[in-house]
């Protein structure tokens, strides 16, 4: 029996700026089970980072504001935490690594001192013991020379820094690791190494991973389940095989078509026409309608809910997969309809 570790329900994070309200995350549902690797994909600006930062309580408020919903971590609602309580969660129960390894470590402190700080923040151990644990955590990520503890970040390559970031994130053995595009800034061979490393940590330590990326290749390689986001909402969710073999939402289908393929030669790479909607002025009706080739009149009128596709846990936010009647009949709290 798998237990749910993270459960985000109808969560809305809006930014109140001088130029209007940015609905960066506008009612998303997402769950991660213990030990599971879940992919979160979508185009730039769709709200992936805001979602993940919300789980860490790292969205600056103001301008950000939780408008609705909850984020449950092991049964506790994070949106209600006080500042002190947040500090117990961060780095301890949930840890995070970021896209930019080059700038994510403090340039004026040694690797060792930054790792020791992470350990001593949550564990009652002496400096010496913490240093020992830091060395061990670095060996786990494949850095065996102890001298690195006394080196400064600028002395390391990008791949090395990302390893250090992972070691630092893992040092208190969090139940969930959030990786926000951890390999985007690295070159291909290093990317593969880092992904390998993360997969090994997942298997050996049972750490659940929420993998944020816009690279479907990464998803195929790492994840068991995928959540696709578009304009602040979840538009499709499925296990990874179903999603790749049988994408339902026209946006997901478009994303899949835009992956370059070695076996099929084509002169031009497919890309979804049009642009992401302005987050300050979302279209009424389906948010993907202006770019969708299957658009019908209802799409422009009414926002589609998440419909259950007949097979298992596959959901899609598209009028092609359900009817208005079902929407009216939808079960009380969740925005999900069974068909």
């Amino acid at each position, binding site marked *: 029996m798998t237990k749910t570790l993270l459960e985000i329900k109808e969560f809305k994070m809006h930014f109140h700026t001088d130029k209007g309200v940015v609905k960066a995350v506008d009612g998303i549902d997402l769950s991660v089970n213990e030990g599971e690797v879940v992919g979160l994909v979508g185009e730039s600006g769709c709200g992936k980072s805001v979602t993940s930062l919300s789980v*860490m309580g*790292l969205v600056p408020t103001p301008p950000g504001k939780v408008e609705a919903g909850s984020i449950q971590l092991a049964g506790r609602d994070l949106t209600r935490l006080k*500042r002190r309580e*947040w*500090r*117990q*969660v*961060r*780095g*301890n129960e949930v*840890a*995070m690594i*970021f896209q*930019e390894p080059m*700038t*994510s*470590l*403090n*340039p*004026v*402190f040694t690797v060792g001192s930054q790792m020791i*700080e*992470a350990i001593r*923040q*949550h564990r009652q151990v002496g400096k010496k013991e913490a240093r020992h644990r830091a060395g061990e955590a670095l060996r786990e990520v494949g850095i065996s020379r102890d001298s690195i503890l006394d080196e*400064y970040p*600028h002395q390391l390559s990008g791949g090395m820094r990302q390893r250090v*970031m992972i070691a*630092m994130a893992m040092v208190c053995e969090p139940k969930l690791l959030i990786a926000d595009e951890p390999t985007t800034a690295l070159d291909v061979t290093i990317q593969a190494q880092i992904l390998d490393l993360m997969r090994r940590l997942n298997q050996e330590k049972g750490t659940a991973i929420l993998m944020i990326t816009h690279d479907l290749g990464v998803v195929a390689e790492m994840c068991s389940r995928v959540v696709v986001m578009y304009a602040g909402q979840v538009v499709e969710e499925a296990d990874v095989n179903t999603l790749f073999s049988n994408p339902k939402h026209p946006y997901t289908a478009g994303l899949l078509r835009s992956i370059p393929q070695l076996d099929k030669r084509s002169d031009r790479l497919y890309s979804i026409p049009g642009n992401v909607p302005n987050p300050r002025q979302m279209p009424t009706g389906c948010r993907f309608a202006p770019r969708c080739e299957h658009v019908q009149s209802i799409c422009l009128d009414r926002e589609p809910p998440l419909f259950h596709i007949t097979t298992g846990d596959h959901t899609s936010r598209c009028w092609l997969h359900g009817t208005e009647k079902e929407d009216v009949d939808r079960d009380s709290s969740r925005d999900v309809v069974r068909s």
Partner: protein
Amino acid sequence: MLIPVLIGMSIITFSIVHAIPGDPAKAILGEKATPEAVAQLKESMGLGKPLFIQYVDYVKGILSGDLGTSFITKTSVAEEIGPYLAATMELSFAAMVIAVFFGMNLGILAAWRHNTGVDYTAMVIAIIGVSVPVFWLGLMEQWVFAQDLSWLPSNGRIDARMGFEPITNFYFIDALIQGDFVAFGDAFRHIILPAVALGTIPMAYIARMTRSSMLEVMRSDYIRTVRAKGVSEFLIIYKHTLRNAFIPILTVFGLQMGLLLGGAILTETIFSWPGIGRYVYEAINNRDYPVIQSGILIIAFIFVMINLIVDLLYAWIDPRIQYGKE
């Protein structure tokens, strides 16, 4: 780097001093002196020689620790200048402490409470601070706190009636050595007003630079990482952010200390503070060349030393900066 700067400074001070209109011999002997007496005095003061020779003599003197002899008191400047120097250093140090402590904390507070009433208030204080002239602030302080409210003394370093016997001429140190806490307290009360007058402008500049530098660092990725570790807000600000924001703050500090030394002359005059500033000020009135030259040279020397220390601090704060390894 230090040596060419010091040579340049010695040339500049020498030239400025000799460009001051007026004749020292006439100044000493008075308007009614006979031309012969004036010429004779000039000769004995070494002013008859060509300028270049005078300069060489002057530099030779400095190198052997001889700063010349005052035309007026006839004592060696090197001997005489000690207490004045100590007074100036004590005042400047106090002003510096005020500037750094209040400036940085004001800037940190403003950055931490960015775009709130606290931020706006702090920045209004800083804007007023950079634009208020030292002499005006000094006179206002004297008027309000010394005259009107009689809270604090407005003149001198210590109450003369205490009969305080200095040893090193740094009164705070001396008072501690002697275990004389009454004198310590009195010296403390005396230094407050002039130190505040002198420290206000650098305080305001440091506050502004601290704020903008802190804001920039706070937005950086690595501060987000620190926060993601669960580190407390206090350590995020005072350990991680401040250390990174320090370089530009330090630059402003170095520049402001130069201006502070200049401001010291004005402040000393207003508060009858017996420092280098007053010493040189009186020397200028008397055309006492050796005193003027040495006074200015010493102030310039202190300025260079402060900037040298600032440069060393850069490398200590930021491991990416390494001198001599470029």
